[in-house]
């Protein structure tokens, strides 16, 4: 008697979002990146389609960051040159993720919206990868900066971040004006995640222009809570909840490196922690690997070596397991 293998049948799928625009599409990117599109749980290729490989975005800043010395090997010559840094970043990942930390209004030499826009333009002129730009994280300055950035990057289909429940209107308007994507961030809260997606959609931003950031935690610091939220969101997407069906970005790099463990110098390390250089990279890669299993469509990575590990890991995970 033939055995029928029971497979889960889903009615919904994750919305597909395209980042970047090539010359034919009105931009200057060398290629575009498609996010989402899955009609199954992460990597269960035998139960549905996974048309797009999860993507890797590489984090860069517009000012010299206060990162661990283990990054110097890769970036020491570009700390003060974000354009050169962006060129390196596109070699390590699929997407450049620029954080405009220099526009922090509390900094002494806080960068103006105009300076930020000029930098974005310059990065676009010198790179080919799709771009994501995150504001400094202060609502008023974010609105001002992102509006200028959206105008400077018109036609390039970048993603602007981040919109939050109490500050999404101006960013959504800027994204719509420049026909860009928008990242909506909810504070590890599935209900706010859904509500924010609804509010952004109601502003008139189409579903294929919205990326959801559930503000995931790092390894050892609440990642299991993020995991359960992402899992539930994906499940909602697959059973037809369109407001849960937006592709998800996970900030693996920044969250992982916030912890003590990846940063602690060898002399401050606990027993069995191993060498900092390797430890930090693995801490970040493990964070990213867990978030990929939870359903991340786009993973933000900080360390080039961690990006390498994740690429290799994705290659292995995406070998067909259909039967």
């Amino acid at each position, binding site marked *: 008697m033939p055995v029928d293998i029971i497979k889960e*049948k889903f*009615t919904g799928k994750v919305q597909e979002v395209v980042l970047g625009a090539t010359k034919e599409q009105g931009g200057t990117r060398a290629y575009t990146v498609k996010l989402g599109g899955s009609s199954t749980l992460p990597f269960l290729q035998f139960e549905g389609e996974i048309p797009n490989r999860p993507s890797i975005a590489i984090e860069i800043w517009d000012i010299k960051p206060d990162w661990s010395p283990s990054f110097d090997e890769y970036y020491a010559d570009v700390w003060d040159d974000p354009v050169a840094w962006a060129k390196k970043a596109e070699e390590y990942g699929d997407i450049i993720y620029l954080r405009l930390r220099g526009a922090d209004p509390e900094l002494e030499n806080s960068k103006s919206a105009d300076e930020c826009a000029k930098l974005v333009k310059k990065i676009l002129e010198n790179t080919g990868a799709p771009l994501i730009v995150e504001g400094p994280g202060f609502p008023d300055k974010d609105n001002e900066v992102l509006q200028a950035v959206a105008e400077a990057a018109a036609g390039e289909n970048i993603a602007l971040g981040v919109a939050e429940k109490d500050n999404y209107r101006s960013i959504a308007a800027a994204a719509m004006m420049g026909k860009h994507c928008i990242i909506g961030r909810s504070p590890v809260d599935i209900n706010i995640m859904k*509500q924010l997606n*609804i509010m952004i959609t109601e502003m008139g931003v189409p579903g294929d222009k919205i990326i959801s950031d559930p503000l995931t935690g790092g390894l050892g610091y609440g990642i299991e809570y993020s995991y359960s939220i992402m899992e539930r*969101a994906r499940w*909602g997407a697959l*059973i037809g*909840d369109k407001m*849960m069906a937006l592709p998800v970005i996970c900030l693996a790099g920044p969250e992982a490196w916030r912890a003590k463990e990846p940063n602690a110098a060898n002399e401050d390390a606990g027993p069995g922690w191993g060498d900092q250089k390797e430890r930090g990279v693995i801490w970040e890669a493990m964070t990213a690997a867990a978030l990929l299993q939870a359903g991340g469509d786009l993973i933000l990575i900080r360390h080039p070596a961690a990006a390498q590990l994740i690429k290799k890991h994705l290659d292995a995970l995406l070998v067909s397991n259909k039967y």
Partner: protein
Amino acid sequence: MAFYMIGERINGMFKDIGEAVAKFDPKPIQEWAIKQTQAGAAYLDLNVGPTAADRLKSMEWMAKIISEVSDVPIALDSTNYDAIEAGLIAIGKPGALINSCPNERAKIERVFPMAAKYGAGIVALTMDKSGIPLNADARVAHAMELVAAADEFGVPTDSLFIDPLILPCNVAQPHAPEVLEALRQIRTLCDPAPHTTLGLSNVSQNTPDRSLVNRTYVVMAICAGLDSAIIDVNDETMVEAIATADMLLNHAIYCDSYVKVFKQR
């Protein structure tokens, strides 16, 4: 698990639709198709009613003009299976619903192969020639035979909408709790489970506050496993009650706009 609302309004029993069917006037029919689609109907019931001179021709015509204004699949509601087949051909794509078929062998042999052929679902009634049974067990026994028939004729069990048949509470009150018990058991008959449905408005026939009876009973029934009903989708308080029950059962992820989202599906 989603809840499927089947909009009841395009039925020749209603005066405006009856007149439209008699005169082949598409306007009122299309207006109700749009109105029910906007209210979140998952299916639009189509019943030509008693005034139609030629049920076959009317069914075909109505299916066509509804499809012109709405993408929502149609539930072809008739006891004349030739008319239903004419409707299925006019619709020309899978996903419609045949409403309905009782647990009678001759009718099963006519309807189930037709559903398989056109990729349609079936509203299957837990009754036979002897009528509607009172107790839950007898209703479930019918349901079991209908599930077996689906298997026999190659209809997926999740294309089956089993209707355990609710009767007016003012004349047949003991049926109400029996239907709830039947709903609980029908969900466990097979995997994937069949859907369940009810012609909900029946429960409130000739009661003074029909909407109150309808929405109270629908919430009780959803709690017992009901996942679809033929209802007045433009009864806002009822749809709000359904959306809330669906959310409280954790079928839909909560958000502040959950009622609005429910209607947009």
